[in-house]
């Protein structure tokens, strides 16, 4: 209504407003509400996985001295004797309050373990995303501008090759090159950000690189494709004919519209980065979430597995929502 009122009232609108205010706000609501629904779906999946587990945690924990009475007591202590829906709701609401239960084996609160490990992943993923965007963006733009040229062919070839490389090979390759041969960077380990950016970077750069190259390759390819597509669009010709200059045409116009698919790739890349972290963390000996998951998995530590999954999923959801908001802000339908 507001847009209609702001115009001289009597003038009939020849074309319908393609995105009336209602629909626009609905799009925003969708962008913000969907993650909540998805979170519930994901939490169900996560919880269901635990519920499916055939191993009895109590028996596993109690080990050699287990008696049926002990097991029953332990089950009660873990709340495993209640109906599944009750367990789920309780688990979810506790989780929302930051309580993810206690590890079956160490009785350490799962949340403590996770939140000790999470900063590592977040810092690393952040750096990896930054690297992916910088490397992938530069390569993609370069390739698109020199379409068919040597740079384009190189970028395409390198990007394809990176996509065919098992991630751990990449990690070990980086270690061999930068640590063993060049002796420039540590082969593994981690120093938290609090110890200073420089220190942190020395340890984080190789794993972040290992994590990001794959995504960088996808971003480069995607950006190249969509940018080539955009550069072929009439409006680019229009901007060129207006004499706007190459840089302006590229950064002010074409890139703006080409970036959407690349952002989507990035959105998909976040779970890949967090997922890929398992291998990377193992190789570089990083105290991250994925190591925790691997450990927990080896022990069938259901609360810890569920906790790591849920937290990872939440991080992914937040990242995806941010990407969606970015996409929404870049497209005209979402503005105003």
């Amino acid at each position, binding site marked *: 209504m507001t847009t209609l009122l702001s115009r001289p009232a009597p003038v009939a609108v020849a074309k319908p407003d393609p995105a009336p205010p209602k629909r626009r706000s609905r799009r925003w609501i969708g962008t913000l509400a969907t993650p909540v629904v998805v979170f519930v779906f994901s939490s169900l999946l996560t919880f269901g996985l635990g519920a499916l587990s055939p191993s009895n945690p109590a*028996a*596993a924990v109690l080990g*050699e001295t287990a008696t049926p009475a002990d097991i029953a007591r332990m089950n009660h202590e873990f709340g495993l004797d209640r109906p599944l829906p009750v367990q789920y709701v309780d688990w979810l609401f506790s989780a929302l309050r930051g309580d993810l239960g206690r590890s079956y*084996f160490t009785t350490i609160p799962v949340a403590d373990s996770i939140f*000790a490990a999470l900063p590592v992943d977040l810092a690393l993923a952040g750096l990896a995303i930054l690297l992916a965007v910088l490397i992938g963006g530069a390569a993609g733009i370069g390739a698109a501008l020199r379409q068919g040229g040597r740079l384009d062919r190189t970028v395409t070839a390198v990007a394809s090759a990176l996509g065919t490389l098992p991630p751990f090979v990449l990690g070990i390759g980086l270690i061999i090159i930068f*640590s063993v041969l060049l002796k420039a960077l540590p*082969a593994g*380990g*981690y120093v938290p950000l609090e110890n200073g950016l420089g220190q942190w970077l020395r340890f984080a750069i190789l794993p972040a690189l290992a994590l990001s190259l794959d995504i960088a390759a996808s971003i480069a390819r995607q950006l190249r494709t969509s940018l080539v597509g955009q550069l072929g669009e009439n409006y680019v010709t229009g901007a060129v004919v207006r004499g706007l200059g190459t840089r302006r045409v590229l950064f002010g116009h074409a890139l703006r519209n080409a970036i959407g698919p690349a952002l989507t790739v990035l959105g998909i890349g976040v779970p890949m980065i967090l997922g890929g972290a398992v291998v990377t963390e193992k190789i570089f000996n990083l105290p991250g979430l994925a190591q925790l998951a691997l450990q927990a998995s080896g022990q069938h530590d259901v609360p810890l597995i569920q906790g790591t999954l849920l937290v990872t999923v939440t991080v992914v959801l937040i990242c995806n929502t941010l990407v969606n908001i970015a996409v929404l802000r870049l497209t005209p339908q979402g503005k105003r």
Partner: protein
Amino acid sequence: ACGDGTVAGPGGTAGGTLKWGWSTVTSWDPVTSSAGWDVHLLSLVYAGLTKLDEKGNAVPALATGWKYDAAGTTLTFTLRPGLKFSDGTALDATAVKKSLERGRDFPKSLIAAQLANVKSVTAPDATTVVIGLAQADYQIPNLFAGKTGMIVSPAAFEADATALATKPVGAGPFTLTAYVQNAKATLTRNPDYWDAANIKLGGFEAYPLPEPATVVAALQSGQYDVAQIPGSQVEAAKAAGLPVQVIPSLVVAVLDVNIAKKPFDDPKVTEALRYAVDRAALLKTAQFGHGDVAYQPFPKGYAGYSNSLEGIYQHNPDKAKQLLAQSSYGTSPVEVVITTAKAEGVPEQLQSQLNAAGFKATIEVIPQAQATQLVYVQHSKALFVDQFAGRDSAVQAFQVLFGKEGLMNPGRQTPPELADALAKVSRTPLDDPSYPSVLQAATAVAVKSMPNVFLYSVPRILARRANVSAIPEFTAVQRFEGVTVS
């Protein structure tokens, strides 16, 4: 990145921080810790009444000395005066009493079985602790040198026992200041430690066992100062100019055999298994030759090591075949499932060796955590590829391996002659001149009568950076007295 900050505390000088790539703990509470490895890290923050010297003999620690009565059922420890826990509370006889009693009585205690023989603990005065035993047992000072005897601050466990899992309070050489589960433990020197004068390190950082493929690079780049490396990396470490120490340890590779399950319910099959195994070949693959072929649970040089057992089950596939032919299975291949947590390496090789000796072996992989459940609790596996980490006390080791309730005795049967031999060991004071021969006799009985197949000893191979002084070679718990980082 080392040498950051030198701390000079009372009772001695202190150097840099040592970064140790080895393992982390399942829990920082010795009472609920569930892995044998934990003892190494726990001994950094906890101290016991006794400790083991490099040969495995109990020597004074928190206690300056101890005395058995004539019957061997009452043991009196004398504590050092003025001891303190890291939380500042006093470590006196009452604290020791409470700590030991918790180990015995706490419902979730995993060391209760070891303390079952402890009838009473009394504290007549601040520096005297009297242990009353149900039966004579001269192994207690050794037992108390390990996880079982670690003294935990009563103030801490009375306030919040579960918090101990991440926030230990003991009186060890170091204090835990930061901990990320499965990732990193940061410790600083404890100036109040009774033996602080010998602790030259200002701090300690413990990391999980590194990847074999990158461990040497990690040492070179300074990620670790010391790391445990697999045998395969020894040459690489040496080539990289890193000093390597191969420290004999109590750890021994072993096959847990369940004689209650097919095919090992037939003694001939069990016997055949002993000859079917080519220990030397396994040692070569698993350790690149570092360590020794083993036929018994103790390493050479240990009091219980019996010379008579050397080479007793030499690899002899033909003999194994013969024995199988004599068994109830006749000449058809005997099917056997090798259960393991990680199939690569020894189990694969074992499979091939058994198949060459008339078995038909398949491999089954179960997660490490389930192994406890399936092998030790449910006894549902016939053959499990295992490692025995050794125990501070020889009798304790026997109990775990061969006792009726022993973890690694899935068949749950102990021949009477072995029980007798063991009882005799317990009754023999450690300083008795006959002790070694009594112990060795028991070893011989056990190896001949029990189905466990010992394979090879697993030394602790440590590679370190040149700026770290040599690591003292303790067989049982690794200690760091005198180690310096420059």
